[in-house]
């Protein structure tokens, strides 16, 4: 049965203060939906796509002295417009060993740091997910707590721990142990990356682990699996989406990391972020720096696509 309106009663008038605006916009073909969508699209356009295009453009220019420090792409001479594209920056990326080595080194450092973060973060995420309800939020809060301080400040604070007369060495000194050189080494870079990105590993792992039905673990134990086997055959396979998501969230920013290697790393810590910085500020070679940046973007796109697939898999479940 459908409700029918008594035709003798006029329909209630609804007050629509925006109806005039709405009608006006509709006349030029703009709906409210378009306006809502326009905000993020505009944001991405102005602050992401346009700068990206500018960077890409610069990467195709040549270095020159002056302001700006690169050759213009478009030149007009006697009414004809000429487009000049230089690919030599990209060619140099492959021919100059420095860049290839920096990319490989960045990937290696980021990958190893990701694995360490995973090994450190997994037990923490697991413990939080299995903690009693009243503890869980407090523990999660503790994981997020470092974000209340600036990232830069936290990395500086690490130097206080690791430098020659830092907290760790002073503590070791109490037992008569010689100071250990930690600063300006790859070790310090790993410590910095693991420490900084740990929450990004823990949170996606936690969300995956907390959703797992406890009865699955019980069923595994019931069927004769020792705790180690339950972990290997049930917990671990079911947390793969979280492992992938967490690893990507660490790996991707770690590749391009600049602050950590420059504050904690030594001269031989080769990372693409530092190379880029040096190109840009020390050598003032903007086109080369731009090419390095574009190439780095491409290196990172593959893991991003992996991340999205992993997230898609989580959503499906």
């Amino acid at each position: 049965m459908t409700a029918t309106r008594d035709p003798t009663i006029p329909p209630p008038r609804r007050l629509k203060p925006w109806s005039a605006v709405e009608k006006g916009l509709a006349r030029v073909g703009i709906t409210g939906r378009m306006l809502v969508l326009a905000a993020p699209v505009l944001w991405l356009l102005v602050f992401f796509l346009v700068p990206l295009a500018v960077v890409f453009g610069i990467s195709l220019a040549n270095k020159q002295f002056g302001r700006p420090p690169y050759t213009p792409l478009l030149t007009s001479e006697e009414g004809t417009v000429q487009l000049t594209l230089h690919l030599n920056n990209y060619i140099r990326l492959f021919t100059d060993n420095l860049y290839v080595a920096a990319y490989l080194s960045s990937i290696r450092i980021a990958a190893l740091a990701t694995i360490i973060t995973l090994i450190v973060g997994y037990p923490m995420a697991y413990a939080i997910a299995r903690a009693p309800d009243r503890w869980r939020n407090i523990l999660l809060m503790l994981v997020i707590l470092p974000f209340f301080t600036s990232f830069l400040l936290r990395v500086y604070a690490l130097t206080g721990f690791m430098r020659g007369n830092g907290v760790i060495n002073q503590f070791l000194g109490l037992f008569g142990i010689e100071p250990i050189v930690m600063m300006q080494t790859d070790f310090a870079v790993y410590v910095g990356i693991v420490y900084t990105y740990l929450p990004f590993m823990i949170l996606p792992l936690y969300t995956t682990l907390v959703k797992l039905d406890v009865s699955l673990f019980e069923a595994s134990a019931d069927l004769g699996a020792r705790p180690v086997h339950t972990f290997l055959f049930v917990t671990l396979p079911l947390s793969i989406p979280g492992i992938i998501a967490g690893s990507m969230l660490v790996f991707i920013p770690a590749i391009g990391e600049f602050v950590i290697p420059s504050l904690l790393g030594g001269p031989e810590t080769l990372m693409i972020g530092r190379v880029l910085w040096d190109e840009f500020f020390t050598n003032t070679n903007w086109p080369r720096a731009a090419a390095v940046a574009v190439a780095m973007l491409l290196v990172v796109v593959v893991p991003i696509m992996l991340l999205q697939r992993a997230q898609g898999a989580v959503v499906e479940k």
Partner: protein
Amino acid sequence: MAKKPQLAIDTRPWRDTANNKPFVRIRSVSKKFGDVIAVNDVSLDIYKSELFCLLGGSGSGKSTLLRMLAGFENPTSGTIEIDGQDMTDVPPYNRPVNMMFQSYALFPHMSVEQNIAYGLKRDGLPRAEINARVAELLALVKLEDYGKRKPHQLSGGQRQRVALARALAKRPKLLLLDEPLGALDKKLREETQFELVKIQESLGVTFIVVTHDQEEAMTLATRIGVMNQGEIVMVGEPTDIYEFPNSRFVAGFIGSVNMVEGIVTEDEPDHVRIRSAELGSDIYVGHGVDCAPEQILWWAIRPEKMVLSRDKPEGLNGANVTTGVVEEIAYLGDISVYQVALESGKRIRVSQTNSVRGNPDAITWEEQVYVSWDEDAGSVLTS
């Protein structure tokens, strides 16, 4: 219909406790969660090849007791023995026990075959043997064509059968089933009930089933343990539980029942007479009861144990007849349930079989009727 085969006495070992050793022996087991007593001093013997049902409402402690048998919870006090071995502190993976979970707990990342094979692989059985056993179990639960599917590609009933197959894979001595039919719809549940009993009988495995559904318990069980507030209030065969409840709780929990309060006026070895103002008549009980004159007690009778009539029946020694007015009739097809308001204002339910087709002379609303019953139709309850 063929004559029901009589069960040999040796299939009911609980009737002969002197000569039969219990298979599962729960001795004064208690479980406390903080201040909450989930299971309170439960002692229970379960025999080999039994299908024992733990029946109780939510929070009665039945699931906690089952989880202690599986090893997921440790008793706060007391011991659990399975097949003569103390299991109290044995972890779940070392117990000769398997459990079928209420949620089925099938591993979502494994196929049906892998789920069933999981326990066998953990035992390190040779591959050929595992494959043979998996095929055998798939045949048992009639899922031969579904071995390669993932759990999420199965219907609820199919998942339930995979869970059963997985729990049976290791040929456990004891199978624990937590609300095994709870997630199925009514029709599927009825079919599966009988299938479950058939499997249990053919394999001879001891089953302990936890359920809140009394009908399910009655259909499945060889014996039922009724639980309330962490205690076992009665253990018995389904007929004992239904026909001879030992307390008001059991009488009220299983099936529908009319319960009245009365006072003992005659207490003889061969009969008891109870006067009940609520019922508006005396109750003559044809057997002795452990009670004292003037004692207040309760009398419970099932709706189908009473008879409705328009004419006043003779009664029994001037008792066992009362009168009232029909208030409501629930026609259920095979039977009709009449709600009769007695003169005291007490309402009782009487069910009558509809043996005459479309009976035009059936008792109807607002009629004055007499309700009568046999001398041993009801149960006298002192607690």
